[in-house]
């Protein structure tokens, strides 16, 4: 399996229902990402970056073309299998953080363990503590996310994404809501994850500083790959 790319996308086409967009959101997109690679997906707003990440993460299944993650074709997976892959193999980080306000920081980080059918919940607290330590938020474990700054919220979201040590991290504009310095800190965390854990990183961004940190850029324009 180590020889296979982490992500293989070939001739991917995504169309929204008639009228939503005048053209396909993704139009014959082909991208291959090797294991441990840090790839920035760049492009303007509406270029298809988020759609591509959602398709790779199995959140959006209504696509045509070849889509493989870790050597496995997503189209052939049932809901349970796909959910298991999202739970163990893929981590998501969103621009809007998407933390659950009724839970504490620690409970937010533990959330993936609630859906882990390996019975991972008993060990989740310790692992969540480790994940929070990696993003420098051990002291915030017991507070609700509403009391955190934007940068801290994003670091909690990263901790949640890495709880199960996924091989692939999909990040959609992770610094979009952060100031420059906080954004740099978040990028540093990603770089450290890639370096220490060998995590494959795909980050959708329109910010040059993020793209510069990545090892490779894939440029999308109007749903097509124009570079990379």
């Amino acid at each position, binding site marked *: 399996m180590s020889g296979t790319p982490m992500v293989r996308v070939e001739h991917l086409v995504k169309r929204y229902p008639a009228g939503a967009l005048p053209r396909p959101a993704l139009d014959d997109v082909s991208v291959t990402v090797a294991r441990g690679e840090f790839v920035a997906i760049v492009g303007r707003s509406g270029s298809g970056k988020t759609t591509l990440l*959602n398709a790779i993460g199995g959140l959006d299944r209504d696509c045509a073309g070849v889509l493989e993650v870790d050597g496995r074709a997503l189209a052939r997976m049932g809901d349970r299998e796909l*959910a298991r892959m999202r739970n163990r193999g893929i981590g*998501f980080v969103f621009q809007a953080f*998407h933390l659950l306000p009724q839970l504490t920081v620690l409970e937010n980080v533990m959330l993936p363990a609630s*859906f882990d059918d390996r019975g991972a919940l008993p060990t989740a607290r310790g692992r969540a503590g480790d994940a929070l330590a990696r993003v420098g938020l051990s002291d915030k474990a017991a507070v609700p996310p509403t009391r955190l700054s934007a940068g801290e919220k994003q670091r909690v979201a990263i901790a949640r994404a890495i709880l199960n040590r996924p091989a692939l991290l999909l990040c959609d504009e992770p610094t979009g809501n952060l100031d420059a310095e906080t954004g740099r800190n978040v990028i540093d965390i990603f770089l450290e994850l890639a370096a220490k854990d060998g995590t494959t990183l795909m980050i959708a961004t329109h910010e040059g500083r993020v793209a510069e940190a990545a090892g490779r850029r894939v440029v999308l324009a109007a749903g097509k790959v124009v570079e990379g």
Partner: protein
Amino acid sequence: MRRNVVRSRSHFVFAGIGLVVGSATLAFFLALSGGAREKILNRLYPVNQVEFQIETVRLFGLGIEVPSRLDEATLAALRGLPGVAGVYPKQRTKFPARLWGGRDVLGYEARLEAFLDGIDPVLVRDELRAAEREVLGAEEGRTVYWSAFRDREGERRIACELSNAAAQTGDDAVAIRGTVTDGADRKPCPEGTYCAATNVLSARGFCEAPVPALVSPFLLEVYNSVAATAMGLRKLSGLEVMLGVQFAVLFGESYFAPDERVDRRVVKRARIVGFSNKAMEFGVTVPLPYVERANLALRGREEASEYTSVIVETHRNEDVPAIVDDARVLGLTLSPRSEEGRKAANVLLVLTIVFAMVSVVILGISAINITHTFLMLVTERRAEIAVWRAVGATLLDVRLLVLGEALVLGLAGGASGLAVAYGLSRAANAAASGVLAHVPGSPSDLFVFSLPVIAAGVACAVLFAVVGAWVPASRAARTDPATVLSQG
């Protein structure tokens, strides 16, 4: 889930009100129906016992051989019917009789026409014991009455004589014990017996225990509400005061009908040893052999071998309809009492169904309310559901999480409904106690909150909560995480 329930508690309280009302209504009426059936109906008309009597309307031309008598042959035919567990004939005295006594309890000596019914003691043994225990408590250290309800004339016969024949109609307790004539030692009849002369003209006879007698609780109710009120007599406080009361019965003499020949008139002493709903309502019920012997002595063998009615006990309640049909072929019909029981049971069943339906309608409305509430909650929590999906929740997980909240709501609603129903039942008992205090043998608690009632109350609340949340749960599962999470 707990956090979500707490977070949305105002929505849940609103949605749960219908469940509380519905399950409370259901539990209240099921418990009341169960109480009416178990504590009133089954005591008056046991469901696995039906009483038959000879059909009074003859059907001609159908080729059915209708027996003209309810005798041993008919009883044997009944015993042979499938589903029949026991056959208990009843016989009524077929001669005039009158009774007097009860001064100790009533404050005066009652004088009444006497009607005696004979029943098989086995039929009422358990019932008598339970009823006596209910009013007098545990048997240790007190007089036990119920066990005396049996035929005691077969016990050792000791010859005796009274001072004179007239003594047998008096109320001198010493005189009526007479003197034992067996042996040289002239003692009175043994304690608890009296000297029963062979007829009113004779002073000689045998020492006998008083005839054990049962009375109906209904008789006491009638006495208290009609006789005592109209005649300004002392009201009887409860059934227990009648236990042990002795009275005399004169077979062959009547206040209304012509008397028997004087040499056939006999005085018997009797003692009340219990009360039963199977006892004759306006009369006295004694073990069957006493009535058979009296009818034999005063009316002859033919009359003594014909029974007034027969109680048939079935193995299962479901056997009753078939046995009623089979008994009809034998020329038997349900007694008015059993017919009443069937009608009462049907009325109770219909009322139970009606109130259960009302409860179900309330629960149905609450389910619609739950659907609306949960649709709103699911819409509000689209982002949360999308996050669940992103971190590994399956469609089934999402559906179960929503239904799980409905389950918690249903359990809470059902439990609250049961508590409300129980509180209402206590209030209803308190309200009814003033009325029922005058009804002897009436239950102090009209309700039976049995396990099935509790289970039905909670299960219906849970069921309707889950049904109400089914569509919202499906909608939650259809939440498109890609769209929701991209919106930010």
